[in-house]
């Protein structure tokens, strides 16, 4: 791991311990630079989780009195106090991790579903309070924090491009060249980080294009005519767009492998690994295994180019398990390969959330029919989703939704009992109801459902993808009052 600090180093605190970071680091990068892999604990069993690129719960921590701050999007600042959540009494000695000793079946559907304490009485009230304290992730924000609405802004554009990679830039430039009023929204502080890290040449953006960086476009309302984005920074307001045409250029992400240990700190998707390496000079580990569906060679080469030591490159289908409890120790690919990081580069699937919001309709269930003609999907997001490899002997210990602590075993227990409706599975297990809101875990859930029932994956209707997926705070949402009027 590259731990050489530049002269422009800053100090911050992790669980009260003083650490050094480089100016420009995200907190997640700074922690990795200091050898900290386990950032969070899962909800039910308090399994250690880290920066995976796949699951948001693994990068949530308390920062300066604010709970659930996304450390991969939070710049590290001098004196910042960062602390692990959901631990008691302390991060170093978490007694709550004793929950891992419970039989898995006891926590299917959540701790709060007690069979021993019937509801309606005083004993249940005590039980419920106890469970709420165990399951609540962070403690409430400090009372001293300011509580004012962050005023929102609203713009009218002809073309809104979502995503700043190769395809998004091309689409935005083409529309601007045609004289149209164009805005581009991108998550990164600079548009197109992943494309750049992969070595693609990015065309410069036409100066007439309004560029909104460091923002999550989370909501497509009124059939995609009113779109809402919020900045990662909590002290700035949200932005609403009145839009004629939408270009979705949000790319694809790699789906986590469905093997035991897939949630252990040190397992990352290609996006997160390349962003750390290219953006911060921090390697995923000292000995990196790269697995994928074809792109693993390219990703491994790029990581090596940034200085990473790659010890294994292979197909995702050959990966049997990831070994290690608190961090990655090795992988089993038919033989044991010692490594301390696993980077997965495929199967690649697009995030269906925005298209779902635009196109889904129905009075009994929201179902995507046809995408309106005003909406185009370009670049990797338009490519066909790759199938998720479900091992023939799917281990029940495989985590499907680490945020809500849902294992393959829990899903299989319901599927084997005859429950095959994804919406019902979601309600019975809470799978996908955490901060990620179903991506990537519903992709995994549907793949397991299809594999177990022998029915084609396309036959299952996906659960409703709902905004805003934790992209906006209460103060930012309150700032939308008067900016977006009710539809009278």
């Amino acid at each position, binding site marked *: 791991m590259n731990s050489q600090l530049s002269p422009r180093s800053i100090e911050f605190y992790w669980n009260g311990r003083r650490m050094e970071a480089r100016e420009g680091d995200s907190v997640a990068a700074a922690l990795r630079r200091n050898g900290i892999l386990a950032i969070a604990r899962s*909800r039910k069993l308090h399994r250690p989780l880290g920066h995976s690129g796949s699951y948001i719960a693994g990068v949530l921590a308390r920062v300066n009195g*604010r*709970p659930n701050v996304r450390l991969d999007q939070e710049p590290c600042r001098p004196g910042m106090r960062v602390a692990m959540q959901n631990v008691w009494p302390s991060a170093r000695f978490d007694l709550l991790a004793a929950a891992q000793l419970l039989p898995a079946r006891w926590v299917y559907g959540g701790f709060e579903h007690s*069979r021993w*304490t019937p*509801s*309606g*009485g005083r004993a*249940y*009230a005590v039980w*419920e309070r106890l*469970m*709420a*304290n165990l*399951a*609540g*992730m*962070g403690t*409430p*924000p*400090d009372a001293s*924090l*300011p509580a004012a609405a962050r*005023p*929102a802004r609203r*713009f*009218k554009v002809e073309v809104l491009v979502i995503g700043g990679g190769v395809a998004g830039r091309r689409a935005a430039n083409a529309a601007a060249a045609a004289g149209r009023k164009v805005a581009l929204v991108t998550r990164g502080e600079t548009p197109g980080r992943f494309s750049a890290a992969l070595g693609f040449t990015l065309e410069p953006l036409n100066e007439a294009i309004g*560029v*909104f960086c460091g923002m999550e476009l989370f*909501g497509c*309302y009124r059939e995609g005519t009113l779109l*809402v984005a919020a900045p990662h920074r909590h002290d700035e307001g949200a932005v609403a767009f*009145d839009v004629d045409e939408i270009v979705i250029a949000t790319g694809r992400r790699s789906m986590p492998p469905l093997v035991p240990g897939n949630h252990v700190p040190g397992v990352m998707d290609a996006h997160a690994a390349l962003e750390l390496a290219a953006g911060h000079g921090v390697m995923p580990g000292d000995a990196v295994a790269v697995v994928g569906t074809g792109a693993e060679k390219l990703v491994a080469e790029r990581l090596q180019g940034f200085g990473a030591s790659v010890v294994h490159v292979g197909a995702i289908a050959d990966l049997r398990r990831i070994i290690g409890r608190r961090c990655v120790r090795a992988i089993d690919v038919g033989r044991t390969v010692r490594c301390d990081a696993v980077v997965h580069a495929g199967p690649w699937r697009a995030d269906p959330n925005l298209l779902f919001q635009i196109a*889904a*309709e129905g*009075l*009994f*269930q*929201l179902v995507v029919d046809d995408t309106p003609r005003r909406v185009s999907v370009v670049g990797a997001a338009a490519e066909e989703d790759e199938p998720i490899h479900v091992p023939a002997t799917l281990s029940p210990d495989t985590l499907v939704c680490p945020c809500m602590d849902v294992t393959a075993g829990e899903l299989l227990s319901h599927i084997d009992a005859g*429950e095959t*409706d994804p*919406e*019902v599975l979601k*309600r019975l297990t809470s799978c996908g109801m*955490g901060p990620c809101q179903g991506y990537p875990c519903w992709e995994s859930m549907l793949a397991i459902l299809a594999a177990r029932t022998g029915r084609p994956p396309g036959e299952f209707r996906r659960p409703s993808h*709902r*905004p*805003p997926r*934790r992209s906006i705070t*209460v*103060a930012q*949402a*309150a*700032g*939308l*009052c*008067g900016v*977006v009027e*009710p539809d*009278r």
Partner: protein
Amino acid sequence: MPADETMLPTKTNVLIVGGGIQGLSCAFNLAEAGIREVVVLDAGYWQGGASGRNGTLIRAGFLTPEWTRLFHASYEEWRGLSKRLRHNVMFSPRSYTVIAERDATAAMFEDALPVHREVGVRSAILGRRALEEHLPAIAHDRVKAALRLFDGGVAPHHAVMKGYLAACRERGVAVHYRRAVTGFEKTGGRVSAALVGHHRIVADTFVVAAGACNTALAAQMGVSLAGYPMRIEAMALEPMRPLIGPAVSLQDRLCYMHQTARGEVVGGAEVPERPHNTLRSDPPTMAATAAAYLAMFPRLAEMRIMRHWAGIIHVSPDFGPMIGRHPALDNVWFSAGWSYGFTGAPGAGALLAAAIARGTIDDRIRPFAVDRFERGRPIAEAAINLAPPDEISGDVATPSTRKDLDRPLGAALTT
């Protein structure tokens, strides 16, 4: 829960259209009353309707004696529901606290107390000290008065619906989801059969408890039913450890909320809009809910909104339920027009089932007769978080920056 692969029957005693909490509660109570052959059909998936989308708040008391008697009866059912169903419905009797920010609303609380006392609902107006202990996180300087309904609380819909469905099936009730009723056959002043596509089910008695679809189903039966479908929205914040103990209604902001057993603050505020018959959500509701939270629970300011969704209810002209036999159809009963359906279902199901099984209408559902609007007898209940679109007043901060719309794009952009 086993998937429903069984064939539909051709004949049954009671056919219930709607497998939400109203339909299942009625079916369960019919089975308990010894009625055999009860079939429940639902066009959507289990928990897909308003029963799986509501705020899960439970309360016994309102302002009118009519509402209070009915919902008190339901509250008594809630207290023993886990034992009756023999499934844990996770009913949490943590009380329900209504907050007034205006003098007129505070005065309304004073009027409610004697009604509650007469019916037997335990409630009290909290003093400042008591409120500080009960709800420390609230913005106390904004509170004019707080009415605490000790007979109130919450229960998560997934546990409740699971309990009802399992209890129904254990008692021989056939419950089928994703089976839409497509039409009815009539003979004289009675409905004789329901059609599910090409399949025909003959039944002696029909119960319509289909939420947003009630008016459409009544039209299919060739009769009218007052009211219309309307979207209601709610949202959940990211989970955190306990901050808000009771169920809370911010009466003057038409906003309700509570913190779930897994730490999410779930709630919603009403905004004036024309009725929408859709499951799509819209940002003004999220903004109004957030503004209400921000004003009344400032510590929620930096909490993030995880999801925001809509459900559809059938709104009656006075927002009160319509329970009983349809005046134009001898063998068709309705449990319709619910805006507080989740809290009312255990009681309404028991009383409606008793009416169907024994033919006697209980005094607690009699005022909510289906034809009360034609008879000029609506019930004006003021203590609810719903109002006709034009009567809802926005009391929340509304920084208007709409002018941004017309500004040249480049000048206002952050690059």
